[in-house]
């Protein structure tokens, strides 16, 4: 049997499996918005872990990462800082968000922030900013899926058909099971990704060097291309700020909605510190494959094709098919979360407060499902055209979502931020982000997201100084409640609390 047929069969089995998971995870009774969008706040630690890491690692982890190591060697370690630092936000932001979400039934970022700042304008701004950055991102993931299909089958399944298959499979299981389907398919996808990439790395290493002892490969790299094993001094400004540009990944809407979904905050605490284990050790075999590629396939025209090219040359067709199904899983596990959260933003932040205030849960849910079909169809259509504007939006998507951070800190930690300060900060942040990305590209070598955040914080603080603080009632509802929780926990542990330590979230 031809290798492409074997790969196609494996990918087909994978697609059927995720649809079956969608069927199995659907609500047996009447579905509610809470069940559909945040899994009824009942997701356990195992599924939470894999849904987070699988959403974090997109197809970039397979294709883009291998390409970057192939081109720039160990400069790639810069990404690791983000893998370790960004998840800390799961605790520092996620923990208070979980408590507030549970008490006041919040399900999105804008839901929480518009309640604290008592502003529907802020709700609309956050929703629009989120959608602007999410939809092109979703489209880029669908494009990734189409490329994988085309590559695996040698063009026999054309790009457009690949994107269409992704679209149908993805909306099938999201419509059926909502967040639970997304989380469970992510779990399957996350497990598949890590096992298969490690097997693939081992097979390629064994075939290229004749042994599983990596020192043989490393010695050859050190002798033939030593520059791939050092980080040039002039790269350090970029190295040290890369993590800041990726900082937004743990609070961008698909990650944020996971804060609400877990069964208890203990899950978030351990997720914050243990998810980096998966995130960075995922790259061990990627390093091995990319370094092998440097030796045996130098000068590839498209560096991000090094992984499929190495697998096609050195791994058996079944394994190649499995690993490409893993790459597809990485794409889909990111795209499904984006699509699902886009629907939640539309339903909870736009439809219910602005279009139909009296909508029943059933009606709102129906509209949310329609939004899934329509938004993904738009992303599918957009994926058929290469548009420079869309590519540019994807490049600043995480930086764009990061601009919500100061207003979040205001609602969770620092009472000094006002409604006007939060609105000004987000607008200024997004404008500066666009200027430093498209007009004066990355001044001083700093990422546009970082520039946006600096100006965002400054304008937020300045405007907040001259405008009216949030109402005492809201401050008590948010800050007071979190302080109460902290004091209660301290009392249970130590029997008493000291005023100066009670408010800290550590």
């Amino acid at each position: 049997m031809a290798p492409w047929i074997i790969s196609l069969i494996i990918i087909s089995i994978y697609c059927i499996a995720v649809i079956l998971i969608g069927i199995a995870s659907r609500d047996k009774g009447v579905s509610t918005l809470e069940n559909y969008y945040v899994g009824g706040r009942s997701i356990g630690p195992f599924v939470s872990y894999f849904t987070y890491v699988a959403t974090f690692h997109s197809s970039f982890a397979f294709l883009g990462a291998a390409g970057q190591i192939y081109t720039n060697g160990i400069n790639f370690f810069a990404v690791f800082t983000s893998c370790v630092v960004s998840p800390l936000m799961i605790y520092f932001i996620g923990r208070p968000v979980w408590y507030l979400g549970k008490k006041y039934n919040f399900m999105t970022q804008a839901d929480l922030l518009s309640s604290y700042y008592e502003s529907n304008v802020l709700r609309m701004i956050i929703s629009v900013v989120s959608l602007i950055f999410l939809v092109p991102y979703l489209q880029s993931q669908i494009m990734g899926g189409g490329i994988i299909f085309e590559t695996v089958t040698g063009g026999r399944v054309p790009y457009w058909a690949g994107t269409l298959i992704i679209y149908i499979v993805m909306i099938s299981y999201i419509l059926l099971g909502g967040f639970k389907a997304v989380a469970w398919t992510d779990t399957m996808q996350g497990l598949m990704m890590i096992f298969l990439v490690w097997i693939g790395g081992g097979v390629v290493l064994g075939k290229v060097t004749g042994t599983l002892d990596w020192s043989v490969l490393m010695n050859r790299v050190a002798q033939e291309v030593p520059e791939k094993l050092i980080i040039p001094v002039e790269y350090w400004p970029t190295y040290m700020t890369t993590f800041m540009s990726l900082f937004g990944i743990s609070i961008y809407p698909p990650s944020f909605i996971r804060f609400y979904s877990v069964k208890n905050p203990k899950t978030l605490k351990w997720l914050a510190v243990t998810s980096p284990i998966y995130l960075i050790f995922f790259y061990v075999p990627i390093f091995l494959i990319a370094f092998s590629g440097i030796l045996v396939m130098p000068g590839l025209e498209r560096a991000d094709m090094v992984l499929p090219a190495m697998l096609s040359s050195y791994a058996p067709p079944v394994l190649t098919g499995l690993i490409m199904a893993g790459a597809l899983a990485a794409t889909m596990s990111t795209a499904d979360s984006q699509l699902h959260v886009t629907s939640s933003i539309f339903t909870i932040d736009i439809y219910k407060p602005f279009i139909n205030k009296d909508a029943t849960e059933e009606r709102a849910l129906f509209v949310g499902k329609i939004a899934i079909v329509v938004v993904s169809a738009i992303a599918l259509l957009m994926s058929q055209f290469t548009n420079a504007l869309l590519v540019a939006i994807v490049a600043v998507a995480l930086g764009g979502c990061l601009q919500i951070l100061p207003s979040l800190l205001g609602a969770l930690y620092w009472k000094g931020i006002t409604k006007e300060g939060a609105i000004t900060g987000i607008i200024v942040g997004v404008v500066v982000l666009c200027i430093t990305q498209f007009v004066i590209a990355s001044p001083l070598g700093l990422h546009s997201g970082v520039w946006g955040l600096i100006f965002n914080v400054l304008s937020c603080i300045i405007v907040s100084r001259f405008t009216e603080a949030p109402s005492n009632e809201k401050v008590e509802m948010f800050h007071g409640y979190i302080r109460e929780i902290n004091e209660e926990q301290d009392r249970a542990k130590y029997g008493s609390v000291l005023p100066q330590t009670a408010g800290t979230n550590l």
Partner: protein
Amino acid sequence: MQEQKKELVSRKKRSIVFTIIWLVGFSLVNYPIGAWAGQKIYPFVLGMPFSLFYFWSAYSLLIAIGIIMAWKLWRD
């Protein structure tokens, strides 16, 4: 009561100590220490060039510090 207050004060001290330890770990993967290690291919350690071994170890250490912080310090 005195004992309990002491516990809380020591908790605050522990927060400061752990934060400093984490920052030291973080500095290992940044300039200038990281830049020094990022220039050294030799000696090989565990079959890896020094730079590779160093960054894998330093990031693993940073993860381990985070886990200890969560275990010993964080609420919930």
